[in-house]
């Protein structure tokens, strides 16, 4: 085997003559072309994600939401729910930009892969934060409505139901079910996105990392 690899090495170093040869002009034209690297795709997709959630945040907060009761804690809660998403998006955009700037083709293979994956991870964390926040807001709004100003229909149903606990239980189940479906769809979407974009990168990174354990 060793001899064969040595044989290959000898042949390898003699192959120069059979290699293609590009002219100065051909190479010159190439440096004007646009890159279609994975980093560019990741950047575009991430920007789209930030844009999407920013739109949702702006849309959600411009919505004139009148607190049902002027109690201080409801106001504080609603107020912070409007401010927090913007603080968070600022933080994550900054982290994303920092990570993105760090990606350099002149690093070692392992470091390059790690930086790319970290950049993606920042965006993923941001997306999960939004999903979590979305779930919390839904829960709070639901509770505010139910506790502070329950619709007549609902109070009647609860009152006429065989067991009020059962009605609450069903409500909770429905809520969890809706969240699970939405979360599942998003998870599927990301599996696909990751599958297409990052599968080989992940495999290669794991292989290098495995070596170092």
């Amino acid at each position, binding site marked *: 085997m060793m001899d064969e690899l040595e044989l290959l090495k000898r042949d390898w170093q003699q192959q120069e003559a059979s*290699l293609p040869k590009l002219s*100065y002009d051909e190479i010159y034209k190439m440096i004007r072309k*646009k890159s279609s690297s994975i980093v560019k795709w990741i950047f575009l997709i991430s920007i789209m994600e930030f844009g999407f959630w920013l739109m949702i945040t702006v849309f959600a907060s411009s919505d004139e939401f009148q607190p049902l009761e002027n109690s201080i804690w409801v106001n504080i809660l609603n107020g912070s729910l409007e401010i927090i998403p913007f603080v968070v998006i600022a933080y994550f955009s900054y982290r994303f930009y920092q990570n993105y700037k760090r990606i350099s*083709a002149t690093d*070692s293979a392992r470091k390059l892969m790690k930086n790319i994956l970290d950049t993606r991870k920042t965006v993923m964390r941001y997306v999960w934060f939004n999903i979590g926040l979305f779930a919390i807001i839904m829960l709070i709004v639901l509770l505010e409505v139910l506790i502070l100003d329950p619709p007549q229909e609902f109070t009647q149903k609860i009152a006429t139901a065989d067991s009020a606990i059962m009605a609450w239980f069903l409500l909770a189940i429905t809520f969890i079910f809706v969240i699970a479906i939405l979360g599942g769809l998003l998870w599927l979407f990301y599996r696909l996105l990751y599958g297409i974009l990052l599968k080989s990168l992940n495999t*290669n990174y794991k292989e290098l990392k495995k070596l170092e354990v």
Partner: protein
Amino acid sequence: MNKELEHQFVTELESNQNIVHKVCSLYTNNRDAHNDLFQEITIQLWKAYPKFRGEAKFSTWMYRVALNTAITLYRKSKRRIKTQDYESVVFKIKAQEYDDTEERQLQLMYDAVKQLGDIDKALVFLYLEDKNYTEIADTLGISEVNARVKMNRIKNKLRTILNP
């Protein structure tokens, strides 16, 4: 970017283009893909060039960027052709230079190397380019000991592919 830098870069790449072609032939299976990868490597090299300050030899610096592009940055086309179908761009061994058995053996070896994973190919490539383990380890970002261990495993893997 200024003209002088462009000229300097293209001239250096033109005279060192063999390195890039060798990486391309190892990681692609047909001429279109070869040219496509060559172009992406050229773009990546050019993007990184302003930061290249001659701290290493231009060729040494190229190995890193070229391999990183092939392994990580390049998005492989889905219309990839299976290894068996390709008309190899580079690995054509001239019949008159070797006797039949040696030629056959070499062809088998090339085919076996082409079947390896991305990281394994990079190690073999650097090994064939006569890089020492310090350089191999540095390019991949692993320790020297692990580079040696990995290389031994690859040799075993090649042995298995050649003698199933």
